[in-house]
């Protein structure tokens, strides 16, 4: 069961990573932010609400890093991290 939960979490994280790339075409920064904040960042919410934290905390951190990296990259016009 624990393995199943972790697998599901990893699958969602991978999907978030793919979908973040799809948002690159959005030129309006506010819309981009709202899509990331309310559509992608919240995708693990239900899973996190019903999953013991030790099983999924790494996956949460991974998704957080993806979201923040995307925001920083867009906000700095791809200059972030250079």
């Amino acid at each position, binding site marked *: 069961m624990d393995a199943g939960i972790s697998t599901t979490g990893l699958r969602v994280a991978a999907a978030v990573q793919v979908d973040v790339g799809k948002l690159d075409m959005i030129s309006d920064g506010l819309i981009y932010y709202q899509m990331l904040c309310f559509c992608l*960042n919240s995708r693990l919410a239900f899973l996190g609400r*019903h999953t013991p934290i030790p099983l999924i905390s790494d996956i949460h951190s991974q998704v957080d890093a993806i*979201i923040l990296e995307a925001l920083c990259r867009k906000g700095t016009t791809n200059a972030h991290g250079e």
Partner: protein
Amino acid sequence: MKLQLPHFQGGFGVTFNAGSAISAFYVASVSLVQWLGFCSHSEQNFIDLASTWAPGQDLANPDQRTALILIALKQAHHILLTEFECHEWSIDGPAPASAVSQIEGSSPNPAANAPQSAPRNAISPLTRLRFTLLHSSQTVDSNLDGNAQAPSVPAQRVITAHLMRFWPSHQYLLGDISLTRSE
């Protein structure tokens, strides 16, 4: 990071999952424990929820909880106590008179609830029911005298906002950003 701070603290409000997961899991699990505690044992068996969610557990006996979900709930409770300045309320030691305002103090406008003499950016503690009393909150309320009332479980957004103020990576920011606009 500033991106992760709530709007009222000058951030962009991207509540990160590693933080919100603690409050979400805690609130959702406590709500279920409280509801199951409100049901009689026969009712729990009838709806079969307790046996599905936490098989073989006696919710009335916190010392013998071995189901993963209940152990995780206990860990989350412990984390909130030790790392995020939450306080336990117990029936033996009545809640302070300001217990309710302490919870409200974690609302998006803490300055409105704080005493005038409080430091500008003082953080109010969050009072919650003792872990061993979670399943019997209905009984606790009925045993209290007069107008006394046990604190209810704070909303998820209240706990999340409280966590954000104590989150380690936010500490260096909270001392630097201006909260003037939100106050």
